[in-house]
């Protein structure tokens, strides 16, 4: 049995309520932080834990906090926008353990010296919004939020902000714009690094829901205990959201690097394998922004650097399995259509490029593509991410743009034959 951190309570009946949370040690970490530790000491523990942010970019959380400009006014914003296709881990945490999220958020606000914190939650999470708002209401009544919390002298206000349906609002500067009541247009970095100029122009820390949910455990058990799990830069556990062609899709919390892709996919306790007689064709780790990996990589451990060395990324911790009955062209086309729909439209390569690539991929899938279309698609991709390297070069304001080529380029590289069959036989050879 490996240690569960963020999902330790999710299966307990009424795990979302204050009474159950308190029965299982809830708000003890907040007490400890506020009454026995200085903000610097909390930061030190989180730095010692080595925890990488769980939102996708994988930046060290302690280091991010230490980069916060020490102005008088500072904000904390929790990113619960979770819209990266195939990512559904924060969904579980906000519905089944909202108090853990609230407690982690309050401890972080104390550590970075914020007097206001916001939890920005994806608008489509109707139940999640109810659960988090109830948790916030309960926490105010309990005295964990508000003025002079637990008699410590620390005060903070916590506001739940609903999104309204826009993938791009997961990008931290777009999220800040949205929180300011505007369209979700990403800001140009520099100068708009949130830690320097963020919400309302003040230094702001933006952290993911799962990142925040780990904080109470780290305060309780110490950063060293967290760092003792995993290997290298991959410390602690991660919540892997497994979907696609597996028998048992779902969220699995695993100590980092302790399992391989193969184990996660085939172990009867986790993915439970594929349908009878099928085999893995490709795996998309880290959300659809990531390049695909082939069956030759199944023995890679689930770790940050391990996946990066294989030319992809662990990203948001989601893993989609495609089996050999799945059409690579159709999957890559659908992913491009997503980016085309969700591009905010500020940058020409992203806005126009995604549209062109989507149209060409669709015509290949439908059987009216030509061989020269492959070069055309690659050329369009090259205009968005010059050189088609990984990590990609960027010609746009945010990294949604350079994420567009990942799937298409992977599909063409790994399954060129399949593209040729679509073109020669003027249609898709797969049944669906």
């Amino acid at each position, binding site marked *: 049995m490996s240690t569960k951190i963020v999902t330790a309570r999710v299966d307990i009946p009424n795990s979302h309520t204050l009474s159950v949370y308190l029965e299982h040690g809830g708000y003890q970490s907040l007490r400890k932080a506020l009454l026995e530790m200085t903000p610097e000491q909390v930061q030190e523990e989180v730095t010692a834990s080595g925890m990488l942010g769980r939102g996708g970019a994988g930046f060290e959380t302690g280091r991010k906090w230490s980069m916060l400009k020490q102005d008088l006014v500072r904000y904390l914003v929790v990113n619960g926008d979770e819209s990266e296709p195939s990512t559904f881990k924060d969904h579980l945490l906000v519905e089944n353990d909202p108090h853990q999220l609230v407690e982690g958020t309050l401890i972080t606000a104390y550590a970075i010296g914020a007097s206001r914190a916001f939890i920005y939650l994806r608008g489509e*999470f109707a139940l999640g*919004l109810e659960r988090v*708002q109830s948790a916030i209401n309960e926490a105010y009544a309990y005295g964990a939020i508000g003025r002079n919390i637990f008699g410590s002298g620390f005060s903070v206000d916590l506001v739940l902000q609903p999104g309204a349906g826009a993938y791009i609002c997961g990008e931290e500067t777009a999220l800040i714009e949205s929180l300011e009541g505007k*369209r979700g247009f990403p800001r140009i970095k520099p100068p708009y690094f949130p830690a320097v100029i963020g919400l309302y122009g*003040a230094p702001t820390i933006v952290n993911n829901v799962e990142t925040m949910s780990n904080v109470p455990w780290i305060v309780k058990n110490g950063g060293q205990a967290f760092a003792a799990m995993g290997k290298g830069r991959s410390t602690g556990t991660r919540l892997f959201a497994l979907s696609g062609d597996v028998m048992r899709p779902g969220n699995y919390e695993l100590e980092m690097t302790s399992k391989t892709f193969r184990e996660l996919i085939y172990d009867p306790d986790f993915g439970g394998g594929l349908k009878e007689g099928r085999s893995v064709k490709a795996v998309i780790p880290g959300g659809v922004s990531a390049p695909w990996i082939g069956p030759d990589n199944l023995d890679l451990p689930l770790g940050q650097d391990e996946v990066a060395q294989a030319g992809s990324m662990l990203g948001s911790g989601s893993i989609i399995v495609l089996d050999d009955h799945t059409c690579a062209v159709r999957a890559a086309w659908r992913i491009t259509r997503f980016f085309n729909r969700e591009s905010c439209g500020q940058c020409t390569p992203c806005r126009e490029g995604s549209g062109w690539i989507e149209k060409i991929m669709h015509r290949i899938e439908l059987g009216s593509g030509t061989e020269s279309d492959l070069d055309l698609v690659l050329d369009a991709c090259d205009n968005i991410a010059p050189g088609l390297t990984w990590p990609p070069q960027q010609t746009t304001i945010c990294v949604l743009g350079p994420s567009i080529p990942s799937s298409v380029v992977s599909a063409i590289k790994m399954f060129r034959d399949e593209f040729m069959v679509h073109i020669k036989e003027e249609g898709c050879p797969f049944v669906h």
Partner: protein
Amino acid sequence: MSFFNPENLEKAQVLVGLYPDKRSALIPLCHLAQSQHGHLSKEAMVEIAELVEVQPAEVYGTASFYDMLHTEEVGNYLVGVCTNVACLLGGGQELLEHASDVLGIPPGATTEDGKFTLEEVECVAHCDKAPCAQVNYRYFGPLTNGDFDQLVDDLKSDRLSDSVPPHGVLSRVFRDAPPMVPLEIIHQERRVMDEARKARLAAQNPDAGGKQ
């Protein structure tokens, strides 16, 4: 005449008071308006503009960016079928086609009786239940065609009215604590905000010398 009914007007005022800048209440107010009226009408946008002290066009400009904010009428039940990649592998495209046949409308349309609007949606973070659908943002999945027919029947006969409130109602839990940030901090926040706004305008428009 106010658009918001007295109960919602009170909620609206609470929302506006939660932030250093009223404009941050814009999206929550749009949701509140939809919960009262099913969609975001012109009257609602005008009133929201007054509440957060911007032009009505700015409310529309923001609202039109977001998929969940509907400036046109939608059905009582907004049915969203996901066809993104995990659902695609599980038969999401076929489910959408079936939904379209059963409801007798293409994606994007509303049935004549105003009961259903069908939408093709992007991943709604329910991929382990592929293929899945949402009705007024309540989750259902995995769904076979038969499950979908049953769902439509249940909705038609209002058997799900407890778990699926009318379109526009998101969270049925409202904040019950007043904001507690002391006034002197709010003054500091506003000062920082004004300076940042000036700097941004000056950077966007160097000739204007930072003037609005």
